[in-house]
């Protein structure tokens, strides 16, 4: 036992020496992950989009239409940046990307309303962007309903109805929206909490494949095995240990940024947070080992890891829900640790549900740790026989 620990330590020290010998390691393990964390933290620090530019086309130019125009400017989400003369002009501004939406107040609005002719107010918004389009639609509908309610109220006042009665009559059924388990209506938080782990898994996968693949490519695998007493277990543990430590620290820094600086609600103990972070790092290291074991030629296993890592953004289901995808992809999605991590985050960390609701996700994460055992023999023989070396013709 003592000798095993000693060999693991030796291999780990050898690995740290290798890491410091090339700039690439420091970049992929520390510099780029931290830059990504800072990038997303800074991009999303405002939380909710504000002051998105919109335009008003007032073809009426009467008291009511001007009041409408003023009302449109009151919500924090949007800001009227342009008053335009025609619908065509506004459409061109929308196409140019200068505004996200516009409202057209028709000619004779006031006259039509007074004469009970029910004029038509149209609003247009750029729906080519997911968040901006959804927010714009909600915002413009809300504004126009408020306006409609105001006119309704004025009419009833002339009919001589009492004020409190009017309020109830104008909008008999009110909807109050609540956030179920997290009080902040902050999209940025939800994006950042998932995108950051996705960035990190990319770095973990790449460096795991690289650190093993380079031993095969540069024919140093014999030396590596020699240091580890020819045990593949010792070899892998020693090699991966320094990365586990570093990535765990990076992930805790990421948690610090998310929960302390961006103020994401956290309803679990620091112990669980550390446990799930460690499990996440280990699961991706395991998949990295699997990639290089499956395809011991580094150029191919790096492609595989890249393909898998980039796909996580889609198949973790935070952009488009997994439940709405075709069945094949629902199964495929289970093969991504980040998906289970996201469940744990949403259920245990963010909402503070009891552990039993995220138990299955923990089991899945642990299951990934056994994946490398399927290819250990193949990897070991690749390390011994070095039979996966690309032939390079030197000119």
């Amino acid at each position: 036992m003592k000798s095993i620990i000693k060999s693991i330590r030796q291999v780990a020290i050898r690995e740290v020496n290798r890491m410091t010998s090339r700039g690439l390691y420091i970049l992929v393990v520390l510099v780029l992950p931290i830059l990504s964390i800072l990038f997303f933290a800074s991009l999303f620090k405002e939380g909710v989009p504000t002051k998105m530019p919109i335009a008003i086309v007032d073809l009426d130019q009467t008291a009511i239409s001007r009041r409408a125009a003023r009302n449109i400017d009151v919500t924090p989400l949007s800001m009227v940046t342009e008053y335009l003369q025609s619908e065509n002009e506004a459409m061109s501004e929308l196409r140019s990307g200068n505004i996200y939406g516009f409202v057209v107040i028709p000619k004779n609005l006031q006259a039509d309303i007074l004469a009970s002719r029910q004029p038509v107010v149209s609003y247009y918004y750029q729906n080519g962007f997911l968040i901006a389009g959804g927010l714009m639609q909600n915002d413009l509908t809300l504004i126009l309903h408020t306006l409609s309610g105001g006119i309704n109220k004025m009419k009833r006042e002339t009919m001589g109805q009492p004020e409190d009665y009017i309020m109830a009559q104008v909008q008999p059924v009110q909807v109050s929206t609540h956030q179920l388990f997290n009080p902040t209506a902050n999209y940025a938080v939800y994006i950042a909490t998932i995108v950051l782990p996705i960035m990190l898994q990319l770095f973990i996968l790449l460096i795991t494949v690289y650190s093993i693949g380079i031993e095969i490519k540069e024919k140093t695998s014999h030396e590596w095995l020699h240091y580890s007493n020819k045990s593949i277990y010792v070899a892998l543990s020693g090699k991966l240990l320094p990365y586990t430590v570093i990535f765990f620290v990076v992930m805790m820094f990421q948690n610090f940024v998310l929960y302390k600086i961006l103020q994401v609600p956290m309803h679990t103990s620091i112990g669980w947070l550390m446990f799930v972070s460690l499990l996440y790092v280990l699961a991706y290291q395991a998949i990295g080992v699997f990639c290089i074991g499956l395809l011991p030629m580094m150029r191919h296993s790096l492609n595989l890891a890249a393909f898998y890592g980039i796909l996580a953004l889609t198949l973790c289901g935070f952009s488009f829900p997994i439940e709405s995808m075709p069945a094949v992809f629902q199964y495929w999605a289970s093969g991504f640790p980040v998906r289970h991590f996201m469940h744990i985050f949403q259920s245990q960390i963010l909402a503070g549900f009891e552990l039993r609701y995220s138990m299955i996700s923990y089991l899945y994460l642990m299951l990934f740790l056994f994946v490398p055992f399927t290819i250990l023999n193949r990897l070991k023989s690749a390390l011994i026989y070095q039979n996966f070396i690309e032939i390079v013709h030197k000119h």
Partner: protein
Amino acid sequence: MKNTKITLGSQVREGISNTLRICMREFQLIFKDVGVMILVFAVPLIYPMLYSFIYYPEVVRDLPIAVVDLSKSSASRQYIRDLDATPDVKVANSSISMAEAVNMFKKRQVRGIVQIPETFTSDIALGRQTTVSVYADMEFFLYYKAIVTASSFVSLETGKHIQINNLLDKGLTERQAEITAEPFRMVDNAMANRAGGFASYGIPAALILIIQQTLIIAIGIMAGTARERHIFGTLVPLDRKRMGTLRLVIGKTAAYFTIYALLCVYMLGMIPEWFGYGQDASLTELTALITPFILSSIFMGLTLSVIFKNRESSMMLYLFTSIPLLFLSGIIWPLSNFSPVWLAVREIFPSSNAIFGYIKMNSLGATIFETRKEIMSLWIQTGVYFLTACFAYGYQVNYTAHLRSELASHPYREIRKRIAEEM
């Protein structure tokens, strides 16, 4: 005078034939390299398909929700039926307590809860405002949107109905009542992606990003491999003469441009047509936008490639930018909320303007004139990166030439020794 003309003519001719040779050699190297072939052909061919299939349903339909009906009246049951009838949500359970509903939510059996108050009917009868509570989580923007959209719609419709009934009781005619309740009609016009399909949000951006990222990584792999292959790790081979900077840059660019122009026919022509994404842009408009985009991506790739010392370097050091670049393009987070720093960083990468321009042209039908800002930026990037590529390659060419002349002055034995050390 005549003499110089002939030399100039022959020089141009020689330059062109050398450029062509470099271009053909680049083709050869690309086609011989399986890794590069996968990146340049398999990824652009497969990814768009894969994404289109993953997002195939495009929209969230019939999201399961629970309704906590405390009123249990015919009016509340009508409300639930109306809610169920919307395309967005499906009422999975409507006769449970709040505690049970929360439990279902925790087990992910329902994704939202609507609570109808006990006083629902009496409020309506007495002309009081009643409040329906909607509990939704923001964890999925699309779920949140579906629940809020459905409940607001049904509440407004129910409210209008109640209001009209009350006005009729007051002795108004039906038309009068309707106009009082709804003084003007509102018409919702979603521009670009009218159906709000998810694939139509994401795929156009993905297509453009795939072009840029595979180009830059592939050029990086080629450069890294060249350095590994060449003696003394030079980027420009030692043993070949007539590899001028301009010839190298133009020759290589010609090879990549040809491949990617063909790929664009598939990615930007066939994929949108097969899967029904926006395709408002004409061939001329797309060409005006995509030409400077591919050129600037290639020149940026050539510039960056000189820093990649090994075959794996570009994948290790550049792949990760794909995700931040998606966010920098401005399709997820509105550009009006970007800080000046990130707006500046955004201008470094051709993909940002190309994605924005592509969505504007293809989904909104913007003309070349309306996309002039993006097209201009792309041409500026093309110019700047062409200069940096020439500068970077010029340095490499000079280095090789310097090394060659240095070696020429050494005795043969010494060179052999140095080569042996390199190997």
